[in-house]
């Protein structure tokens, strides 16, 4: 994992290096002259060779210092970063709370009723939500729940002087648009694994042991059918935490996604490093947790080492 992060951090440095433009350019914008650019680059330390910059950054990073933003001079990334991370974590968890039970429930339902009308309706609905890019479904949600029926705030701005906790309603629409995207994906996944499991020999055996249908579904099928879905949910965790660029931009949500986006736009390498590494970290961690969950639900893996 450390290796992954190290490689990743270096790749980011290199990529931003070959990207045209740099932080100095974005700071100075159109008024930039070669001279002013050079001066600013020097004061930002952009003149040093890549490996020195990387070394400097990495050295500080190891000590927990995320460095200073290039674009916002004098601003320590540590002072702004964790706030946005916190927001994104809350948003991600809200979204999880929305979409996981929903898509699992409907996925299981569709799987059990495979081929029936219920299944077709759920599947089609899942497809339809999946087919809309986030910004389209987001716009639809805004139009319906914020403009036509003014129930929820249109944008997810935290009023000055307040915290996210006092404004939980701003989470709803972004979380719902994530739910839109994920619902179809996860429920379809769940449906197909449910079908596979329901057609398996051991389910047949359980039914022919005289177990009632509901019991068979919940005790025998579900645990096994959840396995692939859990993997899918886990694999998307990284995306959920940091890849929400589109949703966050659309709603003006002050989270990691929009921070990452602005870091790219301003070539703010240390900020981009912090964001992407955090996302990668989440990705790696959630993969790890997924594996653990997988093992917990799947004894075949749990006892892979040792035992019998």
């Amino acid at each position, binding site marked *: 994992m450390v290796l992954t992060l190290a490689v990743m951090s270096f790749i980011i440095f290199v990529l931003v290096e070959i990207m*045209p*433009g*740099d932080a*100095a*350019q*974005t*700071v*100075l*914008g*159109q*008024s*930039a*002259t070669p*001279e*002013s*650019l*050079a*001066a*600013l680059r*020097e*004061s930002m330390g952009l003149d040093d060779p890549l490996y020195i910059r990387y070394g400097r950054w990495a050295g500080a990073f190891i000590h927990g210092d995320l460095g200073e*933003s290039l*674009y*916002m*001079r*004098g*601003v320590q990334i540590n*002072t*702004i970063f964790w*706030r*946005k991370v916190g927001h994104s974590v809350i948003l991600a968890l809200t979204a999880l709370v929305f979409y996981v039970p929903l898509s699992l429930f409907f996925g299981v339902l569709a799987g059990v009723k495979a081929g029936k009308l219920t299944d077709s309706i759920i599947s089609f609905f899942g497809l339809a939500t999946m087919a809309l890019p986030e910004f389209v479904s987001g716009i639809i949600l*805004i139009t319906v729940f*914020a*403009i036509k029926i*003014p129930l929820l*705030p*249109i*944008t997810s*701005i*935290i*009023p*000055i*002087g307040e915290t996210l906790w006092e404004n939980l309603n701003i989470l709803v629409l972004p979380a719902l648009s994530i739910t839109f995207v994920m619902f179809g994906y996860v429920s379809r996944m769940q449906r197909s694994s449910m079908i596979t499991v329901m057609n398996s020999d051991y389910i047949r055996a359980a039914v022919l042991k005289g177990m009632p249908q509901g019991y068979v579904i919940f005790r025998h099928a579900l645990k096994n059918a959840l396995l692939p879905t859990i993997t899918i949910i886990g694999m998307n965790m990284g995306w959920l935490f940091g890849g929400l660029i589109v949703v966050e*931009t*659309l*709603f*003006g949500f*002050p989270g990691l996604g*929009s*921070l990452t*986006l*602005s870091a790219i*736009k*301003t*070539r703010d390498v240390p900020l981009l490093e912090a964001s992407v590494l955090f996302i990668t970290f989440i990705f790696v961690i959630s993969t790890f947790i997924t594996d653990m969950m997988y093992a917990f639900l799947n004894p075949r893996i749990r006892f892979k080492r040792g035992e019998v």
Partner: protein
Amino acid sequence: GGQKDAEGTQQEAEGKMIIRIADQVPNLITPGVWDGQVFSLNSSIYDYLIEMDAETGKLIPALATEWSSEDGKVWTFKLRKGVKFHNGTVFTSEDVKYTIEMTQDPDMGHLKKEDFAVVESISTPDDFTVIINLKEVLPTFMYQMTDYHMAILSSEYDYDKLGESAPMGTGPFMLKKLIPKESALLVKNPDYWQPGLPKADELRIYFVPDIDASVSMLEAGDVDIVPQISPIIKKRLEVSEGYNVVSPYQEHRYIAMAADREPFDDNNVRLAFKYCMDPEILGKACQGTFEKDIYYNETPLLNKHEQYKDIPFRGRNIEKAKELLAKAGYPDGLTVKFYYASDHPYGNEIAQTLKEIAAPAGFTLDLKGFPRDIYLSQYWMNEPLLLTGWGGRTDPSMMLTLAYHSKGPWNESHMNDPEVDDLISKIKSEIDDLQRQKYYDKLQEVFFERGTVINIQVPYLVGLSNTVQDYRQPVTMITQLKYACLK
């Protein structure tokens, strides 16, 4: 709108007037090194020596109460007394000196370095007088002090370290809280030198990168002011009640045709391109309506500048354009890449319209729109055909030196015309107004004949909730929020 009103009264009940603004740009505030866009924050924290009247365009005293120069070389500024910085230090001539000297700081890359290179020396005979000696005659020098980069800084404050996290000036509002990339809270400066100002008690500025989200906030009553909206949003706001879209000033959109690159090195091609123009269509594309007198000319000047010479529009003439192209050796037309910043207001509208109207004459425009940062770093100044946005300048000469003198730092169209150079220097140093206007007239004729620029002027647009009064923003682009208030 209704929701907003309810909140407005609520604020009234608290007895505070709070103006809320959604700004698109992230906070970047160190004076001198920002790309001039985040005005609500800076122009509220800092003050300038001279202000411009938003209505009349006249210069009015601010931190300087008087300014004068006999010969255009030695300038004397008398400073206002009793002004304090937010941290309590008294504003003196040292601070002005410091601010101007900062432009030449080699470590900083100050954006006004070029303009202030003419400063020979600065002396401060007393705490409230500054004398500036220039190297050459420059009758328009005082205009430089209205520039948004020239916010007056305290000589005793460490801007290098604190400029981004705790910016400080003498301005009408003081920064109370800043959450980078999210929001800023400014409160009234109780000791502001201008009696009765600022009118508002608090400014709340949200940094919202997506313009649609900002406008949605306006519509939902979450903010009162959204600067820099795009024309398409203007159309959106115009159809509903409760908002105003104001355009405090005009900006340039220059189409720069590089004078030293194929195909525009041939004036026939430039002329052919000019003959394709249709101000009416361009105006409609940008604005939905057409106001002929403001929108179009072929010189670097704004039509609104008093120096502008009203040369009649040459008229759209495709036949003529084709003829000129043929003469230049392109009887079958030609393909050129057209570079522009796609995320800049009017960029897409102008680019797409140009493509459409230039096509019949044989110009095939290959549109290349990029995010502004990429456009500026990669293509600007390098490509033969560009669309660039320029803010208006208080005095047209400022623009001429920068962008049309052969040695101008931002000579994007690679203009290299001795006559133009000559006229520009004459304009710069001529003290006599009448004589200067003659040079201006001549210059504009030259541009009409063989210039490298097509100048489409577009309104800078600000969306306001209609409770906002006295939103003032002159062509210096500095928002004078101290005047603004809520009904």
